[in-house]
């Protein structure tokens, strides 16, 4: 008796799950008319736009093309390649270069590092110190590891933090228009004392204090 009752409950549960799932699918199809984007697509679009708000030192723009290198992220590279077809950046044809190691960077002006091992980032980026390359990352703690712009998700929107210090080290100037859209700016004249506390962060990043300490 008890077993039959339980089986019945399982059936009800499964039936309810089917109903819920179907309802969800129908709903989402109905809502498909509104434009939808993945994080990859939005980040790719930002990468394209960033080029217009950053000034590179003269020597960095001698190549005939403007190149955005994408390390270890096929999804962003594909989206970007579609967007950049027939486009110009800084008065030059724009190109995407997919790379798997920093040494393949070549004359690229922007380097995007996608979903990488967070702890490897710092190590990888070390050889780039002082080179006129805009480093863009998409992971928690990206700025701490030396990148100039780091994407983050805030309430399902793609936002980014900017490190003025990192940009300066690369000899780049970031325009005020770009700064005004940033979620948070580090290394500026104000707010650089306690970066962990000035901005609400995802919960996991509260590990901030120990991270500072172990350095």
């Amino acid at each position: 008796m008890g077993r039959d009752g339980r089986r019945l409950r399982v059936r009800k549960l499964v039936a309810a799950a089917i109903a819920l799932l179907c309802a969800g699918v129908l709903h989402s199809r109905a809502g498909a008319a509104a434009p939808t984007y993945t994080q990859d697509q939005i980040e790719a679009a930002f990468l394209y736009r960033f080029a217009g708000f950053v000034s590179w030192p003269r020597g960095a723009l001698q190549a005939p093309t403007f190149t955005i290198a994408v390390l270890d992220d096929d999804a962003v590279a594909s989206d970007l390649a579609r967007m950049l077809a027939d486009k110009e950046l800084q008065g030059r044809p724009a190109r995407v270069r997919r790379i798997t190691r920093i040494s393949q960077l070549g004359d690229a002006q922007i380097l995007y590092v996608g979903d990488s091992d967070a702890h490897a980032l710092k190590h990888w980026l070390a050889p780039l110190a002082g080179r006129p390359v805009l480093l863009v990352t998409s992971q928690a703690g990206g700025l701490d590891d030396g990148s100039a712009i780091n994407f983050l998700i805030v309430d399902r929107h793609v936002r980014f933090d900017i490190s003025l210090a990192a940009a300066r080290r690369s000899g780049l100037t970031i325009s005020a228009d770009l700064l005004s859209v940033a979620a948070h700016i580090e290394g500026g004249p104000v707010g650089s004392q306690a970066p962990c506390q000035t901005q609400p962060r995802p919960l996991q990043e509260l590990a901030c204090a120990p991270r500072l300490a172990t350095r």
Partner: protein
Amino acid sequence: MISRRPDPLALTMAVIAAIGPSLVQAAPAAAATSREDLTQMSLTQLSNLRVTSVAKTPQPLGEAPAAVYVITHDEIARSGVTSLPEALRLAPNLEVTQVSASDYIVSARGFNGAPAAQNFSNKMLILIDGRSIYTPLYSGVYLDAEAILLRDVDRIEVISGPGAALWGANAVNGVINIITRSARSTEGSYASAGAGNLGENLEARYGGAVGDAAAVRVYARAIKRDAMQQPDGSSAHDDWYKTETGFRGDWRGTADSFTLEGDAYRALENQSAPGAGDLLVAGADALARWHHRTERSRIQLQVYLDQSERREPFGGLGFVLHTYDVSLQQNLNLGAAGQLVWGAGERVNDYAINNTVNLAFLPSHRALTLGNLFAQESFSPVHDLTLIAGAKLEDDPFAGWQFQPDARLAWTPRASEMLWAAASRAVRSPTPFDTDVVERVGPILGLIGNRSFQPERVTAYELGYRGQLANTLSLSVSGFYNVYDDLRTIEPSPGATFFPLTWDNFMRGDTRGVEAWADWQVTGWWRLSPGLRTVSEHLRLEPGASGILGTAQAGDDPRAQLRLTSSMNLPWRLNLDGTLRHVDALPDPSLPGYWELSARLAWQFSDTLALSLSGSNLLHARHLELPAPYGEYIDRSVFVRADWTPR
């Protein structure tokens, strides 16, 4: 038992068949809309776009709608712990009991077992880099086995509550995921030596790059633990030592990555009586994982082999267990239709037991196969709401197909807040210890296994809140109401007046409780982390039960547990950390509650050398965490340590 295999399979297959195609159809339609417009948008417009799916990485568990506590690498380092079970104590939602120098019990939400009833904590699943380390012989975990260098652990995700829909059987009251760092993140040398009144530690690791895209590390570790001294001055004879070694290699290309890792360990443990000889604990494992990422999907194929062995001295009880496991998992990004994870796996547990007169398994050798299939869909039907529904089907070697569904709802009114609710089911599957055991007490046949023993079952209902209350304060609170059925009891076997005893499923009931923790960054240099866990168990025996050992055989759990951790960054590169913890009284057999304190002072002497002094159980010269005769007195300990990381 045969008649109970059945329809859940058919039903779930029907669910997958029904929803699968519609989901796949929905995806391209959604993805096709207006991608080209993105380049025309201003920075502000881009900032205002809503992301349909965050597909960068699989959702970090810390953000999942579940009671998850993530023990970070830094938390482990700053606590000064030197063993895995001590590290698990950092999770406020776990109940960790030290039994002796080598033995710990880990459980969540009660059910820590009862040694008198030969009931061991068996409702937790523990995985190291995706390799399950529970022993299929009794579904528990031997925490003295395994090789792990805490220095290379990236994080430990501790989920209290069922996790069966993704992880499978025995994830009844929780899942512990130990995740080590990629070899590409651990390049360089590291060596550490430490000594204290209860033992010594020596460990070293070397990691190096192999080209630009790959890296390898190797490590070795040796530990020695001294016997606990008892109040009458005698020794508990629980001293032991262990050597461990292992490697991990990671390669990463544009769309593919590959990991290969392996470990080996060997320990000798004194047997709690003079002249009893040493228990041998040894094992080795190897795991390979391939990961392929495309624009809309991630596929993971994983294979591992694991050998573990325990042998009592002088030809006593022992076993050798070989585990072979292969699993496949795919995460599909379906655009507006959400995200689908599905997977399948097969495991073979091949064991041979060296029986003794007093304790035997019949048959003493088996090869148990365990197949599984799971799917989980997560989507947002309405703004701010996420629904996750999934189930795992497992073909258990003893109990047949088990259906373990899970449904979760998360409401995220703001990026910094989440309210969630969940309902899920999980089972603790029968084991050879339930079905095959034969125990003798002198001439008497004391206990025989029950071939028709049923899985222990739970249906769990949970409600939780997680939020950032202020820039410096975050909070997680969750409550659970778990309904258990078919819990194991000990009964006279059919026809017998008392002996031989056997197992049956005559207990049921419910548990309820709260798990809460917070993080308060008091100032830039000082952080406080309180934690609380309560559980009240309302168990009863079903009609027909003999009542032998009562409901206490399920567990002897403290009703509440508190902790307060303080982390300070002091000048002169000093760190001071401490944890005060309270464990409530144990009911039956009874043990008074206790307070204990651990602390660590660390000094980063130079960029390459760090020195630390730490102490555990500082408030008492010795204390019991499990009542005698089952637990030994645990002595106060101090430990000094030097860590060297050359540039």
